[in-house]
């Protein structure tokens, strides 16, 4: 007979105190698409499984003055069906909707994708480019941290004992803004990114006035690429600016070398995806509908 306990938390505070009381043996159950697989593989053996899907704050999307708060355990399929969110942040929603199959989408969440801390997580680069902020509840209260500072390595987060991720907040969009996330996989569906790239930018006339660029699967954590953002900002996103930004992307890559992609290949592709994602984000900022991923 297993020793594991299953508990349903009704509030964020209750979830955090259950987590603290579990003394490192607690695991948050959002969609479970990583947790259950890891439990079966024997990689994790929780003492207490804390289900947070009965907590409204963690399973809903709330818009306040143009800013969106996405509950950390909101199913990807629910996020994909949110028309206003999709209109404001098509790149973020498309990235979240790339996680796994239709079945996995019915359960998997952005909070779970973040806490699983894979360097190749699809939603994370898009959230980093978007400037999303993670809301965390712990035994000592709440704190917030930018998404790019949340993970510390493959499978590792900066959560302290007893802390849980409650929600992700996307900032209000200035007019003429657009975002995009592209990933490279050897097949068309159901695969893990060899490289992922997120771009979010704002245009004024035909000039890019602000940009954020991120890369996934090319370093131990998802990277915010400030050099690439600098190359795009103030430019008309012409070939010269895109080349410079692509170079900045390749320059920060520290990828692994494996059967799915060599170091050289991943480093080159990072720049290629940046150019393509920037074009899509620009068109979207200009109100031109573009197929993303």
């Amino acid at each position, binding site marked *: 007979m297993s020793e594991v306990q299953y508990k349903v938390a009704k509030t964020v505070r209750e979830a955090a105190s259950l987590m603290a009381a579990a003394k490192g043996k607690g695991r948050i159950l959002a969609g479970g698409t990583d947790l259950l697989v890891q439990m079966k593989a024997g990689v994790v053996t929780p003492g207490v*499984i804390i289900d947070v899907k009965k907590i409204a704050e963690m399973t809903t999307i709330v818009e306040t003055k143009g800013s969106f708060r996405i509950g950390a355990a909101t199913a990807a399929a629910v996020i994909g069906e949110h028309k206003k969110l999709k209109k404001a942040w098509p790149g973020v929603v498309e990235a979240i909707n790339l996680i796994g199959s239709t*079945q996995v989408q019915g359960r998997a969440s952005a909070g779970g994708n973040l806490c699983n801390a894979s360097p190749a997580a699809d939603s994370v680069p898009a959230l980093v480019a978007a400037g999303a902020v993670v809301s965390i509840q712990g035994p000592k209260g709440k704190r917030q941290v930018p998404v790019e500072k949340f993970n510390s390595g493959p499978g590792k987060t900066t959560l302290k004992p007893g802390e849980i991720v409650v929600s992700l907040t996307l900032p209000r969009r200035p007019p003429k803004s657009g975002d995009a996330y592209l990933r490279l996989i050897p097949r068309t569906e159901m695969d893990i990114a060899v490289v992922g790239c997120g771009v979010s930018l704002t245009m004024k006339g035909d000039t890019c006035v602000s940009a954020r660029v991120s890369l996934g699967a090319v370093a131990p954590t998802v990277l915010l690429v400030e050099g690439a953002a600098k190359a795009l900002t103030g430019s008309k996103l012409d070939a010269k600016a895109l080349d410079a930004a692509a170079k900045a992307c390749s320059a920060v890559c520290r990828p692994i070398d494996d059967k799915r992609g060599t170091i050289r290949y991943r480093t080159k592709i990072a720049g290629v995806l940046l150019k393509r994602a920037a074009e899509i984000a620009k068109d979207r900022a200009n109100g031109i509908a573009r197929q993303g991923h």
Partner: protein
Amino acid sequence: MARIHVTTTINGQPTEFLCDANQTLLDVLRDQLGLTGSKEGCGSGDCGACSVTIDGRLVCSCLVLAPETEGAKIGTIEGLASGEKLHPLQKKFVEFAALQCGICTPGFLIASKALLERNPDPTETEVRYWLAGNLCRCTGYDKIVRAVLDVAAEMKETAK
């Protein structure tokens, strides 16, 4: 340790069961409730053979803990036909030979039904992407995709 008492509705029938904290819904369906139509392929959410719906949402029952389904409405392959009368998808799968060994078939049927409920007139690409999480090692998928598209076409014809 005390087992957990769960009350659900499965294929419209109020159902109660006892389970362990770490038992999956698939294990309870198959081993305790005798609903063996849902298959265990991979047990890790990759193959879709265990597909069911929970409150109308398509999921892999191998990636759901049984206690999570308290108060939920679960739909399994056993609820597809009404008595002897096959669901149009089941009929079409037989007609198009969209199955060979049959292990993946319950999952494909549940997933296809969930698709047509949301999108009654899908394109071939939409069908293929929707069903990307259901693996079949026999048919090569083409017959399955055609069967689903044909059901959709028939539904459209009937609606006229």
